[in-house]
């Protein structure tokens, strides 16, 4: 635990403006598409217009004859290199280029490498593909019908579209609780397929040096080390000859965790042409083919006593994984951390069952600011609690307050086996209600209802589950989820810290310098952060699932502490005293009882590199490293309240206010934490009201552009009202918990609960996201629609 005392300016935690901004505001960021190498060529991908079709033939001769085309790559060519298929992140395979058939609209069919990007696009038009169209499987609920077409004919003996069944919790105990309950409420709900849609799309520049055999890949990746190892494993490339470089990234949100066919194709293109090859997808390619998120059809069932004590919860999920199982979940947990669905409440029993199926849609599921399915879990429990409140005619705030876990129950073991590290839940909810003026809002609502106006107040209380994760439980494709960090103090007392994680806007160049500074006392300005380059950083699994601060941040803290410990021994040698006689005063070891006798970290660093004779067994220099295997996950939490107005004439929802109280433990940089919360809240409003990747019955993607896939603008977003409580994690060396995804996880149910609260006079009990005017209107008429498909 850190002591959060006031620190001299420019040292340690606190509001510090970001180091990275100096280049960004000048337009001098260095994103993948900004990279230009001598002799560079450009790639473009030909994609399938069909959701499901056999490839009869591909004729590339006209494209090859184009004067600016340098190579045309098809699945058949990749087969000769054993690269037509690569492992997915979930023990399945994905096609780099389709060989036998296409399995979703937008799937990669051929790759052209040309002298400029316009020519590469032109040449795509010259490729002639003959398809034999097959019946698609679009509706996940029909995927297991006996007459459903089998999508994965590439898997030997596969006769259906089944992927997995998985459950967690005690089913019998949950049934027993339901038997004794006074009240049981059931509800079907869909968390629609959505897309992270970072402003920068995915792309790569591959540069194979034919002489040294060294392959450098500049790539929009959130996980450069994991990518390098996977390239080595898949393509048989020697790992020491591979360098993955992740430059500035224009937003990730999980979209940039996976390895996409385009990256592999850029590599193959560079190997074949012996020149660097750049590939950057366009927006429709991004929306149609890269990792989506959610697509969970859920059935919730909640049990309670008649006075509102919640007893148990059961959730059955049908998970639509698309054509390949390419989510990034730890091996043990095919549904990620969905089994944290008992949420923030003191339940006797809980059980979930998840069934995964293939459909003719893009694969993925890794993404959108919560890779591990906590978003879906929080949504279902928070909707079920509101459904219960409606049934019991209780205020949703009262019902939550009555059932929230109490501080003395922590560390708390949930009915599905999670150990929540710390929490003071009622305090956070009380603060949010106070900030909102909750009971006044209820009064206002009653008055408005009497006048026929539709105003709604929605609450959500979430427990996040981040910092994956302990190696004994968690891996991605067999790689443990530990992260390395190296800190080196230069002779003059300036430092460099090397990270395994990669920023996509989170501000690591600032916050990790603050962590080192907090522990060592070296000013933030004097700590350089190196990240995103596998040749120059230690191994680790990367930035997603809000894991940078809880895992890599802990590694940085421990390495920094090791520096301070070593500095003590050197200081003792310098002062010719025993290390036991020294005490640490931020940035300086000094003699107990004689503070004037001491050595600053800079003086110690110089001595460590100088001629001073060091004690037996102590090597020179002032470096340290750490590989941090977290003992547990961290569990940030928060209480959110949303106020909406619904226009009774047009059914348009306006978010009038949004109050967000977050508890992520101590805050490294409150300004950055608040910014992350703001961004997540906007995501939540987008998902609740606007965003959905829907399909028609032929499997055509209906969300393939930003005209169709609506993202929230400054107009849909209110001015966010944020608050905080601080409950440190007992197991993180600085008490930190992580915050990146909290608001994305916590906000959608608050918005949906608010809209349904507004619609109470119409007797509406539930309607699925996105709550567009059309969907709300239909709900008001008593006929809500399915939002995942264009068929009713």
């Amino acid at each position: 635990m850190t002591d959060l005392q006031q620190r001299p300016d420019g040292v340690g935690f606190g509001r510090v403006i970001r180091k990275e901004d100096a280049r960004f505001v000048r337009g001098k960021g260095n994103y993948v598409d900004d990279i230009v190498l001598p002799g560079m060529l450009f790639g473009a991908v030909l994609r399938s217009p069909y959701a499901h079709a056999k490839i009869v033939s591909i004729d590339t001769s006209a494209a090859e004859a184009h004067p600016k085309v340098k190579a045309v790559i098809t699945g058949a060519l990749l087969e000769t290199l054993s690269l037509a298929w690569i492992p997915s992140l979930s023990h399945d395979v994905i096609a780099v280029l389709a060989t036998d058939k296409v399995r979703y609209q937008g799937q990669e069919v051929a790759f052209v490498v040309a002298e400029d990007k316009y020519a590469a696009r032109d040449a795509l038009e010259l490729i002639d593909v003959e398809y034999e169209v097959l019946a698609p499987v679009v509706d996940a609920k029909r995927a297991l019908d006996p007459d459903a077409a089998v999508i994965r004919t590439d898997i030997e003996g596969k006769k259906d579209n089944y992927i997995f069944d998985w459950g967690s919790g005690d089913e019998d105990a949950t049934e027993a609780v339901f038997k004794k309950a006074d009240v049981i409420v059931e509800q079907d709900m869909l968390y629609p397929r959505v897309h992270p849609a970072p402003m920068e799309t995915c792309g790569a520049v591959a540069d194979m040096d034919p002489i040294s055999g060294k392959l450098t890949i500049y790539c929009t990746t959130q996980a450069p080390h994991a990518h390098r190892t996977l390239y080595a494993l898949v393509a048989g490339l020697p790992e020491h000859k591979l360098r993955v470089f992740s430059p500035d990234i224009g937003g990730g949100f999980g979209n940039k965790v996976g390895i996409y066919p385009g990256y592999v194709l850029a590599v193959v293109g560079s190997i074949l042409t012996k020149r660097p090859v750049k590939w950057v997808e366009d927006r429709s390619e991004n929306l149609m083919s890269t990792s989506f998120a959610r697509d969970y059809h859920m059935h919730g069932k909640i049990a309670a006593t008649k006075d509102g004590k919640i007893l148990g919860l059961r959730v059955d999920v049908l998970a639509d994984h698309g054509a390949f199982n390419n989510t990034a979940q730890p091996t043990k947990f095919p549904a990620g951390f969905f089994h944290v669905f008992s949420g923030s409440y003191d339940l006797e029993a809980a059980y979930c069952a998840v069934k995964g199926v293939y459909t003719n849609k893009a694969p993925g599921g890794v993404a959108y600011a919560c890779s591990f399915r906590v978003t879906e879990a929080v949504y279902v429990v928070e909707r079920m609690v509101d459904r219960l409140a409606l049934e019991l005619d209780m205020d949703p705030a009262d019902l939550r307050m009555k059932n929230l876990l109490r501080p003395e129950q922590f560390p708390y073991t949930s009915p599905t086996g999670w150990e929540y590290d710390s929490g003071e839940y009622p305090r956070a909810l009380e603060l949010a209600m106070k900030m909102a003026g909750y009971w006044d809002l209820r009064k206002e609502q009653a008055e408005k209802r009497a006048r026929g106006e539709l105003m709604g107040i929605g609450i959500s209380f979430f427990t996040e589950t981040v910092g994956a994760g302990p190696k004994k439980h968690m891996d991605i494709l067999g790689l443990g989820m530990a992260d390395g960090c190296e800190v080196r103090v230069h002779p003059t007392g300036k430092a460099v810290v090397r990270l395994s994680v990669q920023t996509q806007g989170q501000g690591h160049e600032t916050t990790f310098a603050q962590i080192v500074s907090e522990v060592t006392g070296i000013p933030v300005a004097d700590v350089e952060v190196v990240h995103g380059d596998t040749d120059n950083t230690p191994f680790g699994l990367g930035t997603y699932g809000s894991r940078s601060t809880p895992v890599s941040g802990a590694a940085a803290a421990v390495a920094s502490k090791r520096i301070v410990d070593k500095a003590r021994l050197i200081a003792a040698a310098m002062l010719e005293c025993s290390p036991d006689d020294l005490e640490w005063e931020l940035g300086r070891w000094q003699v107990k009882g004689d503070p004037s006798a001491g050595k600053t970290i800079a003086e110690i660093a110089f001595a460590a590199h100088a001629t001073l004779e060091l004690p037996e067994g102590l090597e020179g220099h002032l470096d340290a490293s750490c590989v941090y295997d977290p003992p547990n996950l961290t569990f940030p939490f928060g209480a959110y309240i949303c106020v909406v107005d619904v226009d009774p004439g047009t059914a348009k929802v306006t978010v009038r206010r949004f109050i967000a109280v977050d508890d992520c433990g101590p805050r490294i940089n409150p300004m950055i934490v608040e910014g992350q919360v703001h961004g997540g809240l906007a995501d939540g409003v987008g998902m609740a009201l606007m965003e959905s990747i829907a399909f028609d019955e032929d499997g055509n993607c209906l969300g393939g552009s930003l005209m169709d896939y609506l993202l929230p603008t400054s107009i849909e977003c209110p001015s966010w009202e944020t608050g905080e409580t601080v409950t440190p994690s007992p197991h993180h060396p600085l008490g930190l918990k992580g915050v990146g995804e909290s608001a994305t996880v916590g906000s959608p149910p608050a918005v949906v609960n608010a809209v349904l609260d507004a619609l109470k006079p119409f007797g509406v009990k539930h309607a699925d996201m996105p709550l567009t005017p059309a969907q709300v209107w239909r709900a008001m008429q008593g006929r809500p629609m399915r939002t995942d498909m264009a068929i009713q």
Partner: protein
Amino acid sequence: MTVNGEAVSGEVEPRLLLVHFLRDNLRLTGTHWGCDTSNCGTCVVWMDGVPVKSCTVLAAMASGRDIRTVEGLEVNGELDPVQKGFIEMHGLQCGFCTPGMMLTARWLLDHNPDPSETEIREAISGQICRCTGYENIVRAIRWAAENSNGNGAAMKEEVGA
């Protein structure tokens, strides 16, 4: 055309987009590209003093015009108040939408030196930011409004690395 005050010329295909001309031919990569449908606004530049989406302008159409990009915001080594505001108020995270947002903000302040929150939100409503939830962009533009001396020049204030 002139770009940030410098005359530039080039032979281009008729179909070449202005955003590609700026990025690829002139290597002014501060102007970004983010969508196929003129929705995102990461490509916003000024043409003859007005913000335009440079993905929706052909390079040939910009012939003879005056273009200003994010690289032209800093004058004589002095950051524009808008740039300072974005740093001070944490108006950016990944930085991808930032150049376009700042150019719109500069235009707004030139025409309305003291905009309300609603006026700011309207001005940037054709541009998308996925990181900030817009709040700090609004605050950054307000900061710039409050820290300008009326004709767009910055008050003396040290900001930035």
